[in-house]
């Protein structure tokens, strides 16, 4: 069971450690700085933190001693846009798409057979890969220059972004990425070629005739069951979707109470039928239903859901849980999630009950357990 996790927030990176008295904040780094993303790499126990300086751009830092000290490493950078063609423009808003790293939105490790390989998803939609533990990064040209990439649109942000990278544990060259808004893109050859695989996803916000357009889907977060890699879950803008064939097709899960809208989702490490979500009132409101924080859990592949609320605030709670702000440990028993209003909860009984770890943190962007390799 994991006894430590990390929390990236609008104003710093916090380490949470299980102590005799309970889960406690045991360390803080980058205080007052915006940390939109973090990664704990179980292969070599390195810790990565993305910083988003409002004035000075995005940076990446790495620690090889559990966060005691940090060094700045390379940062993904975009190539020069072609001079002989019109600038890319958002198809919805008509605004030019910058070829610049606007935000580091996802960090993920490569496969077990790829030491040093890291993936990085960014806004405005570039996917990057490092083969040297983050010293240097290369944009995945086959995706960035794919003409269909220009169809992507921003969701809540001005530009599209890659927020999820799922590496297949059976084959490190098989990688699926989630794009808001651009569906799910999959490579089977380590990034040489890509295909959009969002068949079955539905976007009610689009004109009706385009509701099933794969490249227009807005998956908020996508997870893959480590022991059953063909089982994947997506918390989508429009609801919850599940695939049992490795993202080739998706089935919509409807009638989940209190809501199918949300951002975060996690899947059990060995049982793909078990997944957790944090619901909210849909897009135009984005607050907990009836101001009560609940986690929904399915144990049967989405046929039924339970609402888990023991230990969570049940009145006047306005916590929203962002897409990266929930995680599960390697046992599937310990979960943690944090909210936009700085609350942080942990469960040691797979969600049946929750303990409050903190109530006054900065807005939480990302929660990641320290897991064994």
């Amino acid at each position: 069971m994991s006894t430590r996790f990390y929390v990236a927030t609008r104003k710093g990176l916090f380490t949470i450690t299980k102590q005799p008295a309970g889960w406690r904040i045991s360390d803080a780094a980058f205080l007052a700085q915006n940390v939109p993303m973090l990664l704990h790499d179980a292969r070599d126990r390195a810790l990565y933190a993305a910083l988003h300086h409002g004035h000075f751009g995005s940076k990446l830092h790495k620690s090889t001693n559990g966060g005691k000290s940090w060094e700045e490493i390379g940062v993904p950078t975009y190539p020069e846009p072609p001079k002989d063609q019109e600038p890319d423009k958002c198809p919805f808003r008509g605004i030019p798409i910058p070829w610049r790293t606007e935000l580091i939105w996802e960090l993920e490790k490569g496969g077990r057979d790829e030491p040093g390989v890291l993936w990085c998803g960014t806004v405005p939609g570039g996917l990057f890969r490092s083969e040297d533990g983050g010293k240097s990064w290369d944009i995945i040209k086959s995706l960035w220059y794919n003409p269909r990439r220009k169809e992507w649109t921003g969701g809540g942000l001005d530009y599209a972004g890659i927020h999820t990278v799922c590496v297949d544990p059976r084959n490190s060259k098989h990688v699926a990425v989630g794009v808001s808004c651009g569906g799910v893109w999959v490579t089977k050859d380590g990034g040489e070629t890509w295909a959009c695989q969002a068949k079955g996803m539905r976007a009610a916000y689009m004109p009706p005739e385009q509701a099933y357009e794969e490249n227009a889907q807005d998956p908020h977060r996508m997870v893959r069951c480590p022991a059953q890699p063909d089982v994947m879950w997506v918390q989508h803008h429009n609801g919850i979707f599940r695939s049992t064939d490795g993202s080739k097709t998706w089935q919509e899960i409807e009638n989940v109470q209190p809501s199918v809208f949300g951002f975060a989702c996690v899947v059990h490490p060995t049982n793909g039928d078990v997944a957790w979500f944090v619901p909210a009132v849909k897009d135009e409101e984005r607050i907990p239903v009836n101001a009560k924080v609940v986690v929904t859990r399915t144990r049967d592949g989405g046929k039924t859901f339970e609402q888990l609320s023991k230990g969570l605030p049940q009145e006047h709670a306005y916590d929203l849980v962002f897409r990266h702000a929930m995680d599960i440990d390697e046992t599937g028993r310990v979960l943690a999630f944090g909210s936009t209003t700085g609350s942080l909860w942990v469960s040691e009984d797979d969600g049946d009950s929750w303990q409050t770890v903190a109530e006054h943190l900065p807005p939480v962007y990302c929660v990641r357990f320290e897991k064994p390799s």
Partner: protein
Amino acid sequence: MARVSFTQNIQRHVACPETRAPGNTVREVLEHVFRENAPARGYVLDEHGEVRRHMIVFVDGVAIKDRRDLSDPVGPESHVYIMQALSGG
């Protein structure tokens, strides 16, 4: 040689001591500065060498006009001052 100094706000992230550098344009001066202080480059310029959206470069108290190519002239006694654009209320 022009005198080049930086806002205090940048110092918490990367050391940028005041320095002197030769050059007839902002680009020439800053290229010299960043050859000596490579970590500072990405804090002031983006990946294409343009001034970051929320940064400002002053030459003798006047904000430069060419934020892309940095062609604004710099005199031998000029003061190049680099700061963040303030925003918000």
